[in-house]
């Protein structure tokens, strides 16, 4: 289990150009597998264009209390990139003026940003329909200062979306670190006690499932049933929905794929599972992703590959929805991950 980010290790894969070189070269450059661009060209979807903005995803920092094996952000305790209150102010202006109905706060562990609570309080006033915080759960138990997070979330009617790799301790701890399972269970129970995730409750609690290895997620509905049964029977835990998300070959997951000699097979699996029907609903078409330092991206994955939006508006300080919407979405071979099988987005399957 890694304890440091690739960046702190000085790993060559911490550099986005190196990752892009791998994604665009090798089996794709030698014609063994088709480029994503060619696949969507065949269904007249190239260039991929955005639809109306619905989701504003804001990454408030890469700092995290966990160092998960599959993390595409390469987040960890050693990452110091944190959104400042000034950048948050710029985001708030956009939140107030945009037509987006969903605000999606992510990280790292977003709660570790010192201005996180201030930002949530201010953003909650903006009348967003769905206010998501992506919590890794263990942060709630990591330190006394976070113990009241369930109450804070409830007070601001935050929609909590939490990672949970499996309903068993072994698989969860292997992907996310020793002790993560027990802390996550305790955090889920605390959220349930506040009403989160209970049948009929407006306090939304959804779980995110990422496969713990070089394979694609199975059927989301079937997985949800299995998760619900096991967590209810073993720990009395309730939650609303399970989002099954495909791991994209970026940062630490890419590093794992290469180190375990699974990269080629995984890319084959993604390409074989390519589902043209998923292309219409990929998340980059209705989402803008904002980085900790205010740059704009088509999605969180492009953010990690430092592929800024192809628009003259590139930063939150210059935000203009009309100009921004008139752009081509930047794609590469990692996009196969969002169009494999039933498709994958931060909200789960799309097809």
């Amino acid at each position, binding site marked *: 289990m890694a304890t440091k980010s690739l960046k702190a290790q000085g790993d060559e894969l911490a550099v986005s150009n190196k990752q892009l070189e791998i994604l665009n070269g090798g089996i794709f450059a030698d014609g063994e597998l088709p480029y994503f661009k060619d696949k969507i060209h065949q269904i007249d979807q190239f260039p991929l264009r955005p639809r109306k903005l619905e989701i504003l995803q804001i990454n408030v920092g890469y700092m995290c209390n966990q160092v998960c094996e599959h993390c595409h952000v390469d987040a960890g305790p050693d990452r110091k990139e944190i959104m400042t209150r000034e950048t948050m102010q710029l985001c708030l202006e956009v939140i107030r003026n945009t037509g987006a109905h969903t605000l999606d706060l992510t990280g790292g562990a977003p709660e570790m940003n010192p201005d996180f609570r201030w930002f949530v309080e201010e953003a909650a006033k903006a009348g967003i329909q769905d206010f998501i915080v992506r919590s890794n759960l263990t942060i709630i138990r990591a330190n006394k200062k976070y113990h009241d997070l369930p109450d804070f979330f409830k007070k601001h009617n935050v929609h909590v979306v939490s990672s949970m790799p*499996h309903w068993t301790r072994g698989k969860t701890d292997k992907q996310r670190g020793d002790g993560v399972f027990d802390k996550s269970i305790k955090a889920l129970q605390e959220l349930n006690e506040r009403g989160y995730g209970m049948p009929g409750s407006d306090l939304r609690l959804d779980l995110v499932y990422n496969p713990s290895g070089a394979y694609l997620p199975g059927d989301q509905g*079937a997985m949800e049933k*299995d998760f619900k049964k096991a967590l209810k029977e073993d720990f009395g835990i309730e939650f609303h929905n399970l989002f099954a998300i495909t791991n994209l070959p970026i940062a630490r997951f890419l590093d794992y794929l290469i180190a375990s000699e699974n990269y080629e097979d995984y890319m084959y699996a993604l390409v074989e599972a390519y589902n043209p029907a998923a292309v219409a609903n990929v998340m980059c078409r209705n989402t803008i992703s904002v980085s900790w330092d205010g740059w704009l991206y088509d999605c969180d994955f492009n953010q990690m590959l430092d592929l800024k939006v192809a628009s003259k508006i590139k930063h939150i300080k210059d935000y203009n929805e009309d100009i921004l919407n008139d752009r081509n979405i930047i794609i590469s071979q990692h996009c196969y991950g969002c169009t494999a099988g039933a498709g994958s987005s931060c909200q789960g399957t799309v097809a």
Partner: protein
Amino acid sequence: MADSYYDPKDLRKFGKITEWSEELGTKFFDYYGKVFEAGALTAREKSLIALAVSHVVKCPYCIDAYTKDGLQKGITKEEMMEAVHVGAAIESGATLVHGVQMMNKYNKLSM
């Protein structure tokens, strides 16, 4: 020619079986797909059966495919190994039960 009988990369080419006999290949894959749809048994249960049978018929391609399929369905390694033992028990039982035939024959031929 390949210098070994099994190459993991050949599993990727399984679909190409239809190229030399499209009608039969397509019928097979239609049937195959239908068999693994959830029915009276869940897709999960079918995956475990397939994994056990893969071991019994000693098909390395099938073992790879249904280990991966099991992972995709959230099946744990303990469940997978139990399924393999079920296959192994039936396989060894099938050998052993023929011992009755041997005993019958022995008794018949012996004074």
